[in-house]
């Protein structure tokens, strides 16, 4: 029987598996567990204070970062009125958007520059001491019509007429099976 044949091998496997978990627990395990169980619960130990301090410092740092990132943009004195930045300053030095002429975008580059006078930029946030503008002048954008070139289409030569011959189809005759096949 197969089981009997492999009894020695099975015993060796069992022994090997048992040996892999045979070592007894270390003597220090119980003492270490007792020490940790008897120690103050986590969060109230001697290191709780520094941990809270570190957490508070992290919160302060995060809040400072958020405040720094959401600070209002610098206010430039407007040319026309308070709170309105001049278009030249906005486009030339302060605007992070790449000018239309230098943009690699085809759509932006194809737009005629003559009709792209940028309107005055309104500050999103009013800084202290800055009066928001009462009116905003927006120059209408002129759209130049697209020029279309005429497409020349050459006539395609028509091939010669193809003669189609009628096909003569003779009806098939179906004979009586048996005698005809024997012939």
């Amino acid at each position, binding site marked *: 029987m197969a089981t009997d044949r492999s009894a020695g091998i099975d015993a060796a*496997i069992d022994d090997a598996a048992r040996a892999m978990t045979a070592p007894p627990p270390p003597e220090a395990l119980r003492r270490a567990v007792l020490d940790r169980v008897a120690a103050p619960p986590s969060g109230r130990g001697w290191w709780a204070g520094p941990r809270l301090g570190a957490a508070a410092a992290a919160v302060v740092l995060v809040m400072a970062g958020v405040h720094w990132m959401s600070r209002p943009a610098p206010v430039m004195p407007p040319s026309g009125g308070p709170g309105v930045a001049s278009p030249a300053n906005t486009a030339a030095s302060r605007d992070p958007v790449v000018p239309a002429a230098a943009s690699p975008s085809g759509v932006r580059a194809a737009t005629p520059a003559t009709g792209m006078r940028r309107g005055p930029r309104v500050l999103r946030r009013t800084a202290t001491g800055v009066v928001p503008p009462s009116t905003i002048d927006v120059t209408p954008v002129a759209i130049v019509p697209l020029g279309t070139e005429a497409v020349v289409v050459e006539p395609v030569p028509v091939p010669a007429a193809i003669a189609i011959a009628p096909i003569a189809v003779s009806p098939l005759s179906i004979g009586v099976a048996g005698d005809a096949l024997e012939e």
Partner: protein
Amino acid sequence: MAAGSTGCVTDDELVRLAQAGDVGAFDQLVVRHQAAVFRAALAALRDRSEAEEAAQDALVRAWQRVGSFRGDAAFRTWLLSIAWNRAMSRRRSLATWFSRRAPLAEAGGVREDEGSPLDALRHRDLARHARAAIDALSPKLRDALLLAQSGDYGYAEVAAMLKVPVGTVKWRVSEARRQVRQRLAALGFVDGD
């Protein structure tokens, strides 16, 4: 609770005392079950120091959570589940897990009834290759085989630890044996030599 007076006290009674904050009662539970906890961790981690740390973590965690133990299962089963989960968590976090299996290969386990020196040599060789073949098993098969063969757990406890049905544990143990036997046969270890 005074040490030494807990000889005939059941686990349930010790658990109730521990739930009331009795560290001594929990210490008795540790004494009773630390070997099973340690061996479960050792089966999972295959490294003595890692197993000791996992067992320690598991026992401390059991103390912290003993208040939530409702007695749906035996305390030992509940404790072993915690130990196995801690060991699995540690195993997953060990990047060099495979390299840490070597020390256990030096553990004993060779049977004493080896007879002649030639037989002893053959048994040692067989045991060494059997351990290597067990090491080469997939984790699922190896875990089931080691836990089942440790002698500390029944199939139901192994199933509770691995969170699989008992039938699955039995199949895994059987399949692990078959694969190890196959590897040993390929190396020329056949009964009746």
